[in-house]
């Protein structure tokens, strides 16, 4: 139980930081902005404390006292700054209004919210069942992620076992966000209670749901967010994998957070863009610090963002904004680079190399094997065909149709390109060293839902057209020719 204290302090620090930075202030409904801050705070707090723990560990200063002292100091500093800024705002003679644009509201959103809440309660009880059945998680949890957390949490120099070349089958070069965070909580508590990885897994699931619902409510409409949240529940593989305690669900969270923040940056006024882009970059850096696939994501996301911004906003702006994004990625990328220098190369994909991939691509049985695995895992992603996410999305797309406002085009194009290219990358590397596609689908599932619901016509436009047209000057049917530099 004691391990939950450092877990909660990390999340609280992240939430306080987000509360101070207010990434979604003025972007939409207040509840959505707060939910986004909460969702980002949890994941960003976990990422930050994992990074700090690795630095403390490598420098030989990671003890329970130092971890708890650092947590207390960080929390005290954040709380002090928050109170100070709040007080200054109250004392200011000219208050700075932060007004949210009034959005049309689908009158039956409360039904969607009630359904989502009910589904969430049922899923959380299911997760409790799963955690009770397998408290140590599934194979990779005790063979890779949690065993490395035990090495990192051990006394003296045992942390070196986590990156030892003797660790032949446990991938000593895999990034350490999840293992590092769990180890930090165990080290501070002085035990290795399974409650820590279980709670961490549940928190990442909840944070993903919060970011997805909130980001869509801010970018598109509340109904889009709530429908996306309900669709998450149809992803049987995704929901099940939460309590496997693997790194795929945290990775999915960081993919989603990075693209959602970039989308908010495109929609935000110019002075808020740097903050949002640094945070988006930080999320991409955390993805790289979570799993090797995150390195592919960070590269693809950086390129797609730069290309989309160049296309929609012009070269100069794209360069400047991409630098902000890159600056945010730095902490995660530096740590990954440091780890790769300390640990031996063990990733099967890296070991297979270009030669292995070329050999796999040249063999027809290998290609068929990969395609069959894709089809099988895609089919199994929903528990039954009727409750498969693709079935739900197809029904929604057929009835509501797609309609993408111009302001959201850069985000949707960038997001779709990221999903496509990252998945393409997964297929290519699987030709050289096979990895189960069920987990790849889970990694991309929340991000795919974000892109899908960004492009889907919201219920507000169908059922409350008068309010929607009054608040949306750029209607989807409006056709005007503009210069390339003003496409956004």
């Amino acid at each position, binding site marked *: 139980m004691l391990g939950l204290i450092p877990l909660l302090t990390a999340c609280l620090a992240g939430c306080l930081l987000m509360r101070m930075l207010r990434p979604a202030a003025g972007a939409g409904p207040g509840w959505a902005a707060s939910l986004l801050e909460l969702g980002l705070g949890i994941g960003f707090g976990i990422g930050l404390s994992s990074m700090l723990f690795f630095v403390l560990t490598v420098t030989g200063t990671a003890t329970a006292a130092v971890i708890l002292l650092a947590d207390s100091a960080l929390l005290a500093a954040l709380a002090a700054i928050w109170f100070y800024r709040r007080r200054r705002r109250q004392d200011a003679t000219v208050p700075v209004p932060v007004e949210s644009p009034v959005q049309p509201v689908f009158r039956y959103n409360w*039904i*969607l919210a009630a359904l*989502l809440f*009910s*589904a*969430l309660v*049922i*899923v959380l*009880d*299911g*997760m409790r*069942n*799963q955690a*009770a*059945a*397998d408290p*140590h998680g*599934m*194979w990779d949890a*005790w*063979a890779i992620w*949690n*065993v490395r957390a*035990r*090495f990192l949490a*051990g*006394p*003296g*120099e*045992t942390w070196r*076992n986590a990156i*030892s070349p*003797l*660790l*032949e*089958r*446990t991938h000593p070069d895999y990034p350490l966000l999840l293992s590092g965070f769990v180890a930090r909580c165990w080290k501070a508590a002085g035990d290795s209670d399974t409650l820590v990885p279980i709670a961490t897994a549940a928190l990442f699931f909840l944070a993903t749901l919060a970011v997805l619902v909130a980001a869509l409510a801010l970018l598109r409409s509340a109904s889009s967010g709530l*429908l996306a*949240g*309900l669709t*998450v*529940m*149809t992803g*049987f593989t995704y*929901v*099940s994998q939460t309590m496997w305690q693997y790194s795929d669900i945290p990775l999915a969270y960081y993919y989603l957070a990075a693209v959602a923040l970039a989308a908010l940056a495109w929609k935000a006024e110019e002075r808020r863009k740097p903050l949002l882009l640094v945070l988006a970059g930080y999320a991409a850096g955390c993805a790289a610090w979570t799993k090797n696939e995150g390195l592919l994501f960070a590269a693809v996301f950086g390129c797609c963002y730069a290309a989309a911004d160049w296309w929609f906003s012009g070269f100069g702006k794209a360069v400047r904004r991409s630098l902000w994004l890159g600056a945010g990625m730095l902490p995660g990328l530096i740590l990954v680079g440091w780890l790769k220098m300390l640990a031996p190369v063990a990733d099967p994909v890296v070991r297979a190399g270009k030669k292995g991939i070329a050999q796999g691509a040249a063999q027809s049985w290998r290609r068929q094997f990969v395609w069959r695995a894709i089809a099988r895992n895609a089919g199994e992603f929903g*528990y*039954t065909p*009727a*409750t498969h996410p693709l079935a*739900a*999305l197809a029904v*929604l797309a*057929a*009835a*509501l149709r797609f309609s993408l406002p111009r302001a959201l085009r850069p985000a949707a194009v960038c997001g779709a390109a990221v999903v496509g290219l990252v998945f393409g990358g997964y297929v290519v590397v699987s030709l050289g060293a096979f990895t189960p596609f069920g987990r790849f689908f889970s990694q991309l599932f929340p991000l795919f839902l974000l892109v899908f619901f960004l492009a889907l016509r919201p*219920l507000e436009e*169908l*059922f409350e*057209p008068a309010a929607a047209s009054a608040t949306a000057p750029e209607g989807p049917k409006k056709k005007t020719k503009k210069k390339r530099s003003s496409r956004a």
Partner: protein
Amino acid sequence: MSQSGQWRAWTALAAASLAGLAGAILYWAHTSRILREEPDAYKIAEQQARLAGVVEMLPVDATVGYISDVPFGKADGQVYFFVTQYVLAPRLLVEEKPERRPRWVLGNFLKRPDIEQIEKEHRVKLVKSFGRGVYLFERTP
């Protein structure tokens, strides 16, 4: 929007919402079955109890050799090895190889082993038998 379009949208909305709720219920039913019928699929709790004596006896920073009668090439052999590594951590468990001879060696057996032959073959001496197929050896100089 036309009347039929609105009906279509309502139907789609109901279908998608119910699919979400149904997905949650099916997941819950699935996990309830796992909890009832196959909890602790890899018997980690059992292994923790089996290896508790070794964990107590070995120094926390030890590197421990591993010998077993279940070959690593088989799925069962991998389960035994990785679960043992997990239970023993932060000690490092390594497969015994000619070029790798740590001081401590853990024997993890399903069948009764020939201790004398193991001692001769691996140049180790039995320190303690913990029962249930668990043996701790120490390398002789």
